[in-house]
């Protein structure tokens, strides 16, 4: 019996050690970004210098150097005020684009999902399966035709060029249709009897009952847009840069501005970090929603 207890104890110890080592490996890079952003570059790039464990006092110096290096605007405010916003402009652009994209895509996908779940119309099945088929395509890779299309439409270097191409998100419509199917037909029918219009059925009944799936989907959509890099790199010019493209600009072939990059990385991680801490449940259900199969 004592032998079994001892082995159980060793097992528990190994399990905890494994988990804790992995947590340390996960947290150290994140912690190091924040620390490095407060240090002068020499402090973390000189050979043999012991890493500092606590923040230094150079954050504002690094921040103002970063602000001077980048000239990024936001909407029409830079012209209105006659000044650019440096890296803060990139944060504003990224947040603005991701929020508009998420809202637009939620409306489009939920409306289409409602139609596929609750109405009968011609070619419903073939159309739906065509959309499903595009789920397997890496849609971020369609940059070449999109670039040509946008330049033909005169939409290069606009926010719309980044927002519109993925607003009709195949995964979004699929998730919405699956969830809307569980909406009882009797409920819709009785609302119809009471004189509700079809749009009211969608707006007043379907949407409010879909709150949790809408939340999960909005996390998926927001992160998708937040991490887009290839297409913004191709289509945007300096004044409208989003966070990924702006940081990429600091990585030059001759010189990499690590101190400034670490400030930029710290600032860019904070919004999503907070969102993650407060909306953890939605993050998890968003990740899982993306992994469901029919």
């Amino acid at each position, binding site marked *: 019996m004592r032998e079994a207890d001892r082995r159980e104890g060793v097992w528990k110890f190994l*399990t905890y050690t494994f*988990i804790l080592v992995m947590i340390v490996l996960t947290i150290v890079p*994140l912690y190091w970004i924040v620390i490095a952003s407060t240090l002068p570059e020499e402090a973390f790039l000189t050979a043999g210098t012991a*890493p500092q464990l606590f923040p230094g006092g150079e954050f504002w110096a690094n921040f103002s150097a970063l602000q001077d290096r980048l000239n990024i605007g936001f909407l029409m405010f830079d012209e209105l005020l006659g000044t650019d916003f440096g890296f803060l402009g990139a944060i504003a652009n990224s947040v603005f684009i991701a929020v508009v994209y998420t809202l637009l895509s939620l409306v489009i996908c939920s409306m289409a999902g409602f139609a596929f779940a609750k109405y009968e119309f011609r070619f419903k099945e073939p159309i739906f399966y065509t959309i499903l088929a595009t789920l397997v395509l890496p849609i971020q890779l369609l940059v070449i*035709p*999109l670039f040509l299309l946008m330049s033909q439409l005169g939409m290069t270097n606009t926010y719309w060029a980044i927002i519109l191409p993925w607003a*009709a998100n195949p995964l979004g419509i699929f998730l919405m249709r699956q969830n809307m199917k569980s909406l009882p037909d009797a409920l819709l029918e009785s609302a119809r009897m009471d004189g509700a219009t079809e749009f009211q059925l969608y707006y007043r009944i379907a949407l409010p009952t879909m709150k949790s799936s809408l939340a999960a989907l909005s996390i998926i959509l927001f992160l998708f847009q937040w991490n887009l890099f290839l297409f913004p790199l191709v289509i945007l010019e300096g004044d409208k840069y989003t966070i990924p493209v702006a940081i990429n600009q600091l990585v030059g*072939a001759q010189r990499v501005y690590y101190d400034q990059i670490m400030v930029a990385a710290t600032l860019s991680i904070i919004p999503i970090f907070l969102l993650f*801490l407060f909306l953890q449940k939605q993050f*998890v259900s968003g990740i899982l929603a993306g992994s469901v199969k029919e």
Partner: protein
Amino acid sequence: MATHDSNRETSPTVTDTLRYWRQSLSKALPSTSSGRVAYVFLAPFFVLFGLFLAFPIVFTLYLSFFKFNGVTQETVFWLDLGFHVIELNEMQLAFVGFENYTRLLSDAMFHQAMFNTVFILLLQVPLMVGIALLLAVALDASFVRFKGLFRTMLALPVSANLVAYSTVFLLLMQETGLVNFVLTTLGFQPIPWLSSDFWSRMTIVGAVTWRWTGYNMIILLAGLQNVPQQLYEAAEIDGANRIEKFRYVTIPQLRPVLLFVFVTSTIGTFKLFAEPIIINGGGAPLESTITIVQYIYMTAFIDFNLGYASALTYVLIAVVSVLSIVQIRLGGENDA
């Protein structure tokens, strides 16, 4: 129906023809008003889907048979939207048939990009899925406390921006960076993480693994919750130890989820772009970490060889689609 048929027997007049068309049209369109509403709900989706997804998919294929020589100033078509006039200019395209595809076969850089991608993939995906699985099983153990807190901390990298975290790895892996400091302190030789071909690929493997392990762990953890507890109890009665329970209960029960994780990670690695471009920009030799998507980007938007880049894109789309179909097939078999 009867009146409709008799109309057709006599010689049709204009009004008859019109009525016939109207009848076939109303049969083609949905009869109830609610059916027509469906089209209103679907309209915005289809406009955007058609313009920005269906059209580009077809257009990429079309472009892959041409050599692109630029866009001329000659307007072939314009749209007057009232507030804005859109001019569509003529594109100079020279048909080259399958030349772009045959060129692919002897393109050393394409082979290098393919090799790098597959090399990274073969190391990174098993490593990450392995760690994610062990973590999920560890966190699922009944005696482990603070499960929620541990899960949150392990999943934190999900919140890091793809480009931002790549630059952090660029810093950590510098010749004089934190990782080499730890190595030399422990008495090892510093590793040329960014300047050697092999180690710069390892840097990408490490970075991608760091970013996505927690994400996959969440999916696997959810899969573990669905494994019936009775199976473990039955295995215990049969005298199975921990390893045997893991081998004969957990793994087979998790198979569909594991498969999903494997295939999505494989596809994700095929789409690798931000990490290699940052690591390359930060000084690693181009050939050692160039990935397919990075090569497509350079061909299309630095060399402006849009036709050839389209052919490359189609090869990649084909590979990724086949992988997805394999996933759905295998997953489907298992569910049944």
